[in-house]
């Protein structure tokens, strides 16, 4: 949706991404109408269920992004060409995933304040999300370590595969930790709600809208990263030329 604000088209735009962006904007508007106006309040949760229409899709997209990062990383490592573009896709996807995961944490705790009366519960989903948020911040830090593009790609691909292995382990351990201790001290700790048809449709529609936004963001970010990598390679020419002229003058 933000591309609409730009008067000069960004150099990463193509017809396909433009249509994808328009689709994302239209979807967001429809989602807002559905989620904020047309759906009824939940029997148990009241109006706080309206947070769910953004909270659940962002959480879904964050996990999707991390799995996509892992898939691209595996493709980079085991592909014949060791494609750098797959590495950039992995990086773009992880960045977007971290943003959505941060959003998930914030909206989750706002929802928790309404439903549980407290911003933070050691709920398995919230706890897992918090751990993974930090993990992928670490992954992005690894991407920024420097070195050549090949080094960056190999290093971050391996870390991405480690990180994706952590998802089930962290989640599983937190779930059984919570199930053994402190049972049902909060109201509906897992956030499940009984939904009517329109509510369920809005939720699924929200997932579709945010997945579109994700695809749109990753495509654009991937192109900027490609331009940055190309610029870095061109920088070598400049540096070589500089070194040569310095040699002549000295």
């Amino acid at each position: 949706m933000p591309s609409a604000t730009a008067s000069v088209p960004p150099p990463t735009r193509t017809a396909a991404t433009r249509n994808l962006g328009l689709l994302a904007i239209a979807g967001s508007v429809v989602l807002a109408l559905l989620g904020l106006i047309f759906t009824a309040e939940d029997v148990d949760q009241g109006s706080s269920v309206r947070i769910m229409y953004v909270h659940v899709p962002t959480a879904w997209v964050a996990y999707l992004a991390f799995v996509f990062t892992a898939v691209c990383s595996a493709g980079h490592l085991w592909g014949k060409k060791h494609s750098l573009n797959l590495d950039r896709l992995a990086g773009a996807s992880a960045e977007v995933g971290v943003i959505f995961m941060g959003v998930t944490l914030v909206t989750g705790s706002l929802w928790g304040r309404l439903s549980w009366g407290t911003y933070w519960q050691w709920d398995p989903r919230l706890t897992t999300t918090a751990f993974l948020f930090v993990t992928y911040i670490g992954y992005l830090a690894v991407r920024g370590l420097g070195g050549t593009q090949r080094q960056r790609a190999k290093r971050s691909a391996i870390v991405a595969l480690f990180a994706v292995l952590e998802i089930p382990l962290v989640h599983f351990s937190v779930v059984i930790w919570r199930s053994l201790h402190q049972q049902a001290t909060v109201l509906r700790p897992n956030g499940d709600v009984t939904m009517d048809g329109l509510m369920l449709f809005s939720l699924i529609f929200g997932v579709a809208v945010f997945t579109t936004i994700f695809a749109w963001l990753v495509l654009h970010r991937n192109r900027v990263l490609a331009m940055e990598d190309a610029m870095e390679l061109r920088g070598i020419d400049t540096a070589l030329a500089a070194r040569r002229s310095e040699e002549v003058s000295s």
Partner: protein
Amino acid sequence: MSASINRTFGIAKAVASKDLRVEMRSRVMTNQILPFAAIVMVLFAFALDNDGVLQRVAPGLVWMATLFTSLVVVQRSFAVEAADSAIDALRVAGVAPQGVYLGKVAALVVQLVAFEAVLAFLALILYRVNVDAHGAVLLVTTCLLGSLGIAALAAVYGGLSIAGRGRETLLPLLLLPAVAPVLIGATRATESAFGSDGARVVEGWPWVGLLAVFGAVFLFGGTLGFGPLTDE
């Protein structure tokens, strides 16, 4: 094939005994880390002044201390390699990185288990925790597998933070969220062994299973990933 596996284990043994020897010479563990951990245990006893609470926090305290100690120990383990660029010499010597990795993990496990043994012993005395024979078996297994899980990941991320020079802050950022399952599992299993909060010993074994899975997964992953990650 088996010759190269034997060779890898030979290298692992050489690296592990070298690391432990360096650690024994420097005495940082015995002269600095252990006394610090012990004084924290004692201060906790003053601060909480309640046997019931102390028995409840003892398992968590032991594993939190182990986790933070692992950061220091693994950083030292790789600082030794970096001090005089021995890591370059190891790379150039064509030494199998799997061997270096397994050696590092083994040395880390030995140090962490020694550290946990002292802390658990202190908890028994200071916090009046009771452990029966079955509980002792559980406790020993937990310490071994918990340390293995921490060490398997710490060695990988420690190697990575050495490769990207001057990025020491990277290690805790990567390691701490990743070893959360170990912290949870080992603490619960230790609670069962200590009988804290009415926990029974048999309740601890499923957690040991989690620790075993974690250790196996990351030991395998680390063996494959350590070489490419530290290869600069």
